[in-house]
């Protein structure tokens, strides 16, 4: 079991690596200066104020923001559940706003969508729910049977085909939602806070499933969430939204390593603790000038711990680890360490200089 798991993980790591370096990539969804205004009680609300983003084929692209940031509206412009007031949304090279109603309906079959509240038909069985998108396009009964059976087996609910949604747990309902979204063989999946109503364990299993959807069916996923954990778990690219604009975007690893905006920093902090624990201050008070305390952020296999051991080896210094928090982002270690370096002030200065030259971010705590 553990061996299998390890092989699986390392395989996936390789895939992630390959994906990150395979260029150029095909554009899947492009938002160009997308604006959306709503009128509400005589007031004009600007939900989107000129959003420009590109989601590439094969991405699991996460859009994160607090509620009211406009991310939900942005997601809905992709299948025109919300029509942009101005700007364009291009899906697979087509500007959907120029399509006729009938053409748009066809395009929608290529864009699956899942929801926070699942939005399943309570009056229909699991089978009928998953079959619904196929029935809407008059798919032959035999094809429907086979496709639904295949999808239910993919999401692990083959035994629940005859159950009704109110007999299922939240996680199972979302699995049905995912199966339904995949019924018409889409190339894009839109996820609207799909795990926000679920507990942490269930969230993890649904995220695993979405990863499989991305890999096995080669479906590009655009997801919105307010949980940085979700971004950390499965996204390769991320955009941070605030007040209807994208304030920051890029590779997930880069954002975790070097968040540029206050909002992004706060989201990163929500999953990776980088505040300074009280014990560090106690150590600081006791150090009496014989040592200094540094905080080191690092990303990547050989950076963090190696730097620390090199400092101890190369310089006449004692290094104490006061605090450490290392987690993994898409197979890459990522962390935050607080170390105390003791020795003569000249040695400490040299050590500090050395650390600064490494591929880490370091700052003195005083």
């Amino acid at each position, binding site marked *: 079991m553990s061996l299998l798991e390890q092989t699986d993980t390392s395989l996936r790591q390789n895939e992630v690596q390959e994906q990150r370096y395979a260029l150029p990539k095909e554009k899947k969804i492009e938002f160009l200066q997308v604006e959306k205004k709503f009128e509400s009680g005589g007031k004009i609300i600007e939900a989107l104020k000129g959003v420009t983003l590109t989601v590439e084929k094969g991405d699991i692209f996460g859009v994160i923001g607090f509620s009211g940031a406009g991310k939900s509206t942005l997601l809905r412009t992709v*299948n025109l*559940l919300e029509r942009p007031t101005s700007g364009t949304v291009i899906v697979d090279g087509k500007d959907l706003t120029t399509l006729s109603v009938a053409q*748009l*309906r*066809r*395009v*929608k*079959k290529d*864009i*699956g*969508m899942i*929801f926070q*509240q699942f*939005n*399943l*038909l*309570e*009056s*229909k069985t699991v089978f009928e729910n998953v079959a*619904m*998108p196929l*029935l*809407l*396009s008059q798919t032959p009964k035999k094809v429907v049977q086979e496709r639904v059976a295949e999808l239910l087996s993919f999401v692990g609910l083959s035994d629940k085909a005859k159950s*009704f949604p109110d007999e299922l747990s939240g996680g199972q309902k979302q699995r049905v939602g995912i199966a339904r979204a995949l019924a*018409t063989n889409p190339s894009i999946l*839109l996820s609207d806070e799909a795990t926000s109503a679920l507990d942490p364990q269930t969230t993890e299993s649904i995220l695993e499933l979405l990863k499989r959807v991305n890999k096995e069916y080669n479906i590009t996923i655009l997801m919105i969430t307010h949980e940085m954990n979700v971004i950390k778990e499965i996204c390769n690219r991320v955009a941070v939204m605030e007040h209807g604009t994208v304030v920051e975007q890029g590779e997930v690893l880069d954002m975790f390593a070097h968040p540029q905006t206050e909002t992004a920093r706060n989201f990163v902090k929500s999953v990776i603790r980088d505040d300074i624990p009280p014990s560090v201050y106690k150590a600081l008070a006791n150090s009496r000038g014989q040592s200094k305390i540094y905080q080191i952020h690092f990303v990547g296999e050989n950076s963090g711990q190696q730097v620390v051991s090199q400092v101890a080896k190369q310089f006449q210094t004692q290094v104490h680890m006061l605090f450490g928090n290392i987690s993994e982002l898409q197979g890459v270690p990522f962390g935050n360490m607080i170390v105390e370096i003791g020795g003569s002030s000249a040695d400490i200065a040299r050590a500090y200089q050395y650390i600064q030259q490494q591929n880490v971010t370091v700052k003195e705590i005083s």
Partner: protein
Amino acid sequence: MEVSSEQIWQAVYQTLYMVGVSLVFATLIGLPLGILLVVTRKGHILENQAIFSILNPIINVLRSVPFIILLVAIIPFTRLLVGTSIGTTAAIVPLVIYTGPYIARLIENSLLEVNAGIIEAAEAMGATPLQIIFRFLIPETLGSLVLSITTATIGLIGATAMAGAVGGGGIGDLAITYGYQRFSTITIVATVIILVVLVQGIQSLGNRLARKIRRK
């Protein structure tokens, strides 16, 4: 002078006839109107301010006219439609016009129970408005729709009591002409018992059907 059992059976038949036929026509009118009231409102799948703002007050006006007034007021229309303004069949026309808007409102209320998320999911799947109505809205509220029709049926039974005014007959008419106007207590008691049994029967039939649909 007491009523004969033959008269009672005749009255029961007339009531069932009026209720049955009126219900069919009132539903045929009320169901589409109720659906229209929902889908043409702001933000819904077939938003249409013109239709909604015309339909809504018309239904309100029809619903505020007391049945006994409506019965008499539309006599010319009734004559035009069924060739006579007197008799059981003639009573059906005002019953339909009275109950249709009522059913429309009940259906509207039922359909509004559907979670907006369901409609959003349907739109995301590329469902047409008709598909949304028949494959999403109606199946999701079928239990509630059955209860609405049950309520309307019972309302119809009440309204048929006044059908005597145009010679429609029925149990209510029997109660008024024999029981009330000729002081026949036994007739009143008998007709009330029949009505109670009828209403109870219809209500529990409706409940059972709705429960079956909702599987609870």
